[in-house]
């Protein structure tokens, strides 16, 4: 199957396997722990590439969970790396640009409104970016727990919407709206959390 280059899929798969070989060879040669962590990310990406080769809507649905798993693992590993190397010092001077003092309010307001209009995943990403920018510039002394709570409830909305889809499909419109809102709040909240990570003690 791999040896016939008659179709794009086999050819893509061949390229994928070549990438795998290169990545594994690098993995084998590398001895530094941090570099190996980065290389595993390369390997994750190749896994996603091979899923993407399917080239249908299904691939899109499969990449997302694959990506989530990959990110979760790399976060866990980074945490272990920090712990085992005893890296606790935080950077002192964190990103100082002038625009960050003048523009955040208006920019993030525009993005937030546009995001709400778009709604769904993309809207969430846009609104989240706005909020991220705001918090990145202004900082926040408040606890991020409220954001996490919102994110949790958004997740619940999303799951409930799915259960509605599966059990009572005639209410699909309600479910679509619920899922759209849920994913919007979820993505926005998640991105905002990134914005609050300034290496402060309250994070």
């Amino acid at each position: 199957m791999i040896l016939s280059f008659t179709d794009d899929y086999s050819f893509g798969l061949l390229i994928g396997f070549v990438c795998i070989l290169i990545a594994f060879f690098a993995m084998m040669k590398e001895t530094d722990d941090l570099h190996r962590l980065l290389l595993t990310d390369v390997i994750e990406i190749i896994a996603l590439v091979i899923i993407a080769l399917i080239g249908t809507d299904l691939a899109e649905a499969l990449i997302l969970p694959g990506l989530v798993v990959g990110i979760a693992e790399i976060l866990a590993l980074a945490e272990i790396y920090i712990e085992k190397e005893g890296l606790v010092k935080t950077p002192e001077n964190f990103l100082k640009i002038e625009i960050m003092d003048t523009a955040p309010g208006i920019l993030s307001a525009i993005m937030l409104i546009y995001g709400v209009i778009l709604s769904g995943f993309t809207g969430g990403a846009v609104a989240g970016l706005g909020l991220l920018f705001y918090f990145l510039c202004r900082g926040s002394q408040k606890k991020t727990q409220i954001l996490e709570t919102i994110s949790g409830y958004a997740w619940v909305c999303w799951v409930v919407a799915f259960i509605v889809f599966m059990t009572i499909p005639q209410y699909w419109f309600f479910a679509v709206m619920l899922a759209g809102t849920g994913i919007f709040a979820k993505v926005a909240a998640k991105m905002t959390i990134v914005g609050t990570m300034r290496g402060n003690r309250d994070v």
Partner: protein
Amino acid sequence: MYELENINIEGQVVTFIPFGDIVGYLTPYTAILFIFAAVFTIIALISKPEKQVDIAFGGDAYYTKNVSVKQMRFQRFMAAACGLATMGGVLSGDVFNFTLFTAMVGITNIGIVASIKNRHILDNAYEYGILAMVGTLPLFAGAAIIVATTGTLSMWILFTPLVTVPLVAKLLLVIGVLAEGMAPVYVAKAEITRAPGAPFILMVHVSSLVLFLRVIEIVISM
């Protein structure tokens, strides 16, 4: 009513849980695995960790290691998550769901061992983590090749003689599960055995072997 086409391998379906078009099922074989995983999850939930007896070198003294409550809570949570992921993997009737549950088992396994703040254990937990991450490549690649060649991920269709699954995909799936489940590596890196908390550490082993047994069933049936 869902029925497996080939009942020569593990017997007739005992029960199935239709969830949309993804239908989880239990045969006598997977039911035993499921119950086993469930029992050990419950044991991990209700039992306290043991106090490891250790020898102080250079003297005759022995001492016992105590596990702090905070650390025990974390380990217990991870062990429970690991048990749930294992049960999910056993129950799953869809190859991609199975791989996702396997990947989740990998993450929780790292969590169980990494909660102990000991340089040696963390070093080894890190090595496992790298291996588990590398393991997601064959795992997902196996599932992806299956869906690309057969057009489906549902085991109900894959197990029928109508579709042939390429050998490469089967091999990748098995390699992926072996790399995610840590039991084989668990011994090669004996340092990890310094980690106290027997009921939770045992979940590492339970999840690896149970998922391995499940993937054997999947691969033989396909």
